């Protein structure tokens, strides 16, 4: 790792989508008018495919190297050098970022293709693809940037695109409000992120090694040990600051509130940005800085607790939602919680593994729901669906496979990755049986709400109106082929990360140069298998209840929703009233402060300003009277003696304020100078 291999093609992985975005952004409206939508999507998709192929090349280049040398860099130029701060524009690929770029360009590419069909009737086709490309660029920058500041560019860049795409149909107030919410909540996170960067930089700088580059930070990480600020460890505080950023971008408690609203965007956006890629940025960031997090046990504990709490919290909300995309949104928040649980018990590899499998099955679920919404003519309420299985076979089968995967059905991708996290939550030095059991409860809830969705949407009798039923149709190939590929991925992606019991994980081995060897847990096969069976059993219970309720109809949902007088159900259904609480405290609070500030300006400061101006005016008016009647009186009386002097005085009284002021000024200056000269 000492001498990274300089390449000159990594830049194109990142920059190609930017080219697409620039072309469509500047010329798209004209091109679409003149040459049609085909050209727009070609301009957008070709660069992403190019990036994907280059990513594959990077992967092969890495594989060809010795594990400890798997490290490519492409340095472009010096971005900022000021004082000891030195920031390059440089891209690097190591086994971790290789996984990320493949997910972003691979799954991202499929979602681009799917969008050809999904967005086909939209007039702002070019604008959609511009932002989709721009997003891909920003996301690739985020995962390949060689330093924290460059990553921050991607970090905020994806936020911008998320904002623009959530509010894509900007004529609807609800959409733009959701976009604003996403951006502003993320800004709160970014605020933490940037403070984390500052703290790391200055702490290292005080010891002569100020840097924001990942490699250098890792090299000098030991210098952060035993450094204190405000009575706490620097490593702890810095990682907590950065984690605030992660809770924003990756929608964790307390900053998760924007993600459910983000579903206002077109569904491919929900799949790409709000499920597969952007929201995993926080997990990536922690994995990238794993050496810092591992130095801060307190932070890890916070990460794990927030992760598992979010996983459970969001799952309970998902139980009750009726909007097909909202269920998936809360499910995403919940699954991200699992990733943070993994990261929080220092099982970074497991977190990244779940990130990858989740990208497949959640993208597939979202695109599947998009296919459903498309067929239902825009309907998102699951209460009006049902029985779609026969009309939409491809959508159904791919959706079903993904549900199996997310529910942790054995031998699917989600099973292996979630199991890995749960096992680590139990057995890692940072884990505990409590974390594990909470995670298992969450897995049971996940199985319930996902099968509930599957049954409500695809099984039973159709609850749609007649008109909708007649127009039901399977989506075109351009949409179903990506679904099929993603569904295959949902299963297959798991098989590169088999548990120790089944022969060990190639995935973990691949990431070993980054994270180091996983904790030695010899002779652990027995417990691992046992825990695995436990979690599968709990998930099976979840499935079975959903089956009884929504397939067989043998169990009335009311049996549960009326528990505790329905209070619990209302709490879940209304999302714990968190939105309302935030609105009341933060939004209204800020607006109150804003109005107070404006009031102070108008009524206090300007009162003083206007008041002193008026006072001056009165004084000069009075002065004028005094001049006219008193002085002039004397002057006139002595006019025949001092005629010339009278003329002079008259000049003074008709002169402007300026000359008065300058006379006064001169006198004051003189007085002060004399005073100062003699006193110092």
């Amino acid at each position, binding site marked *: 790792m000492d001498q990274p291999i300089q390449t000159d093609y990594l830049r194109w992985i990142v920059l190609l989508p930017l080219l697409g975005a620039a072309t469509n952004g500047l010329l798209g409206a004209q091109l679409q008018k003149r040459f049609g939508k085909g050209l727009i999507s070609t301009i957008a998709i070709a660069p992403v495919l190019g990036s994907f192929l280059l990513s594959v090349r990077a992967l092969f280049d890495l594989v060809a190297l010795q594990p400890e040398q798997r490290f490519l860099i492409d340095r472009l130029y010096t971005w900022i050098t000021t004082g000891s701060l030195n920031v390059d524009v440089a891209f690097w690929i190591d086994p971790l970022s290789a996984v990320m770029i493949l997910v972003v360009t691979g799954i991202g590419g499929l979602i681009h293709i799917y969008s050809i069909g999904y967005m086909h009737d939209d007039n702002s086709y070019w604008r959609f693809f511009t932002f989709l490309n721009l997003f891909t660029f920003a996301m690739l920058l985020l995962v390949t940037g060689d330093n924290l500041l460059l990553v921050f560019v991607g970090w905020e860049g994806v936020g*911008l695109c998320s904002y623009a795409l959530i509010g894509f149909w900007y*004529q609807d107030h609800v959409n733009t409000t959701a976009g604003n919410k996403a951006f502003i909540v993320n800004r709160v996170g970014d605020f933490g992120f940037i403070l984390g960067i500052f703290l790391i930089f200055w702490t290292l700088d005080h010891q002569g090694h100020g840097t924001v580059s990942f490699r250098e930070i890792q090299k000098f990480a030991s210098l952060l040990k035993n450094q204190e600020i405000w009575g706490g460890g620097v490593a702890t505080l810095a990682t907590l600051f950065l984690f605030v950023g992660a809770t924003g971008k990756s929608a964790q408690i307390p900053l998760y509130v924007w993600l459910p609203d983000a579903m206002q965007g077109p569904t491919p956006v929900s799949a790409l940005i709000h499920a597969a890629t952007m929201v995993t940025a926080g997990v990536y960031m922690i994995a990238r800085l794993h050496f810092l997090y591992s130095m801060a046990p307190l932070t890890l504990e916070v990460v794990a607790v927030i992760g598992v709490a979010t996983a459970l919290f969001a799952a309970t909300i998902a139980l009750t939602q009726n909007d097909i995309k909202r269920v998936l949104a809360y499910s995403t928040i919940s699954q991200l919680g699992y990733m943070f649980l993994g990261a929080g018990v220092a099982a970074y590899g497991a977190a990244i593994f779940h990130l990858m499998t989740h990208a497949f099955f959640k993208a597939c679920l979202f695109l599947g729901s998009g296919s459903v919404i498309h067929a239902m003519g825009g309907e998102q309420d699951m209460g009006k669906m049902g029985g779609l299985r026969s009309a939409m076979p491809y959508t159904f089968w791919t959706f079903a496979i993904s549900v199996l995967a997310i529910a942790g059905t054995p031998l699917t991708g989600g099973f292996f990755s979630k199991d890995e996290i749960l096992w680590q939550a139990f057995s890692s030095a940072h884990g505990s049986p409590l974390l594990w059991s909470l995670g298992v409860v969450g897995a049971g809830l996940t199985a319930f709400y996902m099968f509930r969705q599957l049954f409500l949407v695809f099984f039973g009798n159709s609850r749609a109106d007649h008109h909708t039923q007649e127009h039901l149709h399977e989506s075109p190939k351009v949409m179903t082929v990506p679904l099929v590929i993603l569904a295959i991925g949902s299963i297959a992606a798991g098989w590169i990360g088999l548990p120790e019991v089944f022969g060990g994980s190639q995935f973990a081995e691949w990431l070993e140069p980054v994270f180091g060897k996983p904790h030695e847990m010899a002779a652990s096969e027995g417990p691992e298998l046992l825990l695995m069976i436990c979690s599968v059993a709990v998930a099976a219970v979840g499935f079975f209840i959903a089956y009884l309720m929504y397939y067989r109809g043998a169990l009335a949902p009311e049996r549960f929703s009326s528990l505790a007088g329905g209070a619990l159900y209302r709490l879940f259904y209304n999302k714990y009233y968190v939105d309302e609480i935030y609105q009341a405290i933060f939004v209204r609070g800020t607006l109150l402060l804003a109005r107070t500030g404006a009031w102070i300006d108008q009524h206090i400061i300007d009162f003083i300003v206007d008041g002193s101006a008026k006072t001056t005016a009165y004084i000069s008016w009075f002065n004028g009277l005094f001049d006219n009647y008193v002085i002039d009186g004397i002057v006139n009386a002595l006019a025949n003696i001092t005629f010339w002097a009278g003329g002079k005085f008259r000049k003074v009284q008709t002169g402007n304020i300026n000359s008065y002021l300058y006379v006064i000024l001169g006198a004051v200056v003189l007085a002060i100078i004399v005073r100062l*000269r003699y006193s110092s």
Partner: protein
Amino acid sequence: MTDNVLSWMTFFPVAGMVVVLLLPHDRHSLIRWVSALATLPPLLLAIWLYANFDRTSSGLQFVEKAPWIPTYNIQYFIGVDGISISMVLLTALLSFLCIFASWGIDKGVKGYFALFLLLDTGMMGVFVALDFFLFYIFWEVMLLPMYFLIGIWGGPRREYAAIKFFLYTLFGSVLMLLAILALYFASEPHTFDMTQLIAQSGKYGTSALAMWPFDRWGWGFQHVVWMALFIGFAIKIPAFPFHTWLPDAHVEAPTAISVILAGVLLKMGTYGILRINYPMLPAATADLAYYFLGALGTWNIIYGALCAMAQKDLKKLVAYSSVSHMGYVMLGMASFTPQGINGAVLQMFNHGTITGMLFLLVGVIYDRAHHRDIDGFGGLAAIMPVYTGVTAVAFFASMGLPGLSGFISEVLVLLGAWQKYVILSILGASGVILIAGYLLWTIQRVYLGPVNEKYKSLPEINGRELFTLVPLGIIVIILGVYPHAILDLLRSSLDQLNQIVIPHLS
């Protein structure tokens, strides 16, 4: 021309003014084009200056020096260094573009352009003057046309705004004049030469004056003079609580004058502090910077952002956003770190281009709809997509979006401030949340949402308007990607300036 490049840049516009005055008053088009031609050479020379500026030198360059009023040791002494170069470039650029933004002026055209050109000379002079007396002359030369430009060509409450602007500024000028004279008499031999005043900075007393309340505060001669200068400059920045002239002046001023006001005039405040307070009164600077630049700057950031959020007038909102953004300049320069001070001066430049764009953009919509009520629009994105696209660039640059210029300067300022004042840096950074809040809310209300039927047929932004906006937009993007295009100019001088003050920090 290149021998006296700075003199040419300074006085060419005023020569143009003479030509304009000689033209018949009804030849509007001719007057406009003459004015454009009068501001073009300074811009071309600015580009030449940019290419030929020695980036390794921390000293003065392109110096011109001649005795002027020898009796009082007053000289014609001008030059540039890293502190002023970026402001000289900005002034030349904005003056040229603003001629085109003034194209729509049709009342008293001759007078308007004549005053505008005089203003241009005054502004340029302030940034190149190295003799304190000359500096003061230019300072006053700049104020007068500004007063008339607001007072005659302004909106409905123009007289209130112009008088408020004038009184505030006059108050500041008086204090500044006092300070100048105090320094003049304290130097030996008496001089207005800034370089000599700096060289003698050790002589200005710092021990507490035996006069209430300075004895209680421990303020010496240096502190008192510092404060007088500071108030003069703080009014220009504008720093709380001297800022309330700004929203009124902006709301009433014609578009181009708002651009000049926010883009160039505000910078004179922070420029003056860096040019005069820092090197001439380094001990007082070291003592007072925390309170009057650091803490006050942070307060400016947050207070300005909150006030902006409460505004209903689009122009007033942009005006308050200036109060907020200039706070970053103050915070950065108070840190005495390379990042902080370089970031501060870069922020001065970036704010000039970004806020210039914002005011131009407000002007575009005001010219069409004849009002600026934020809640009175809606859905402009569908009617004027190109205009909305340019607006988005400016708004997000103002928000400090990475990849655009504002990010670089704000992050440098906050990073620099962190080393000295962690809490101020954190508070300042929290400002970016508020800024995002009010700007996004504004975008939503003005540009997004359902189309307002009333404005269904508003014409798209025209070529002339784009001509004034696109160069600024390109600069905003280039400086976000390659900030060293400006940073390289600043570094040597600013690092040296830091070194003057740092020994006095306790």
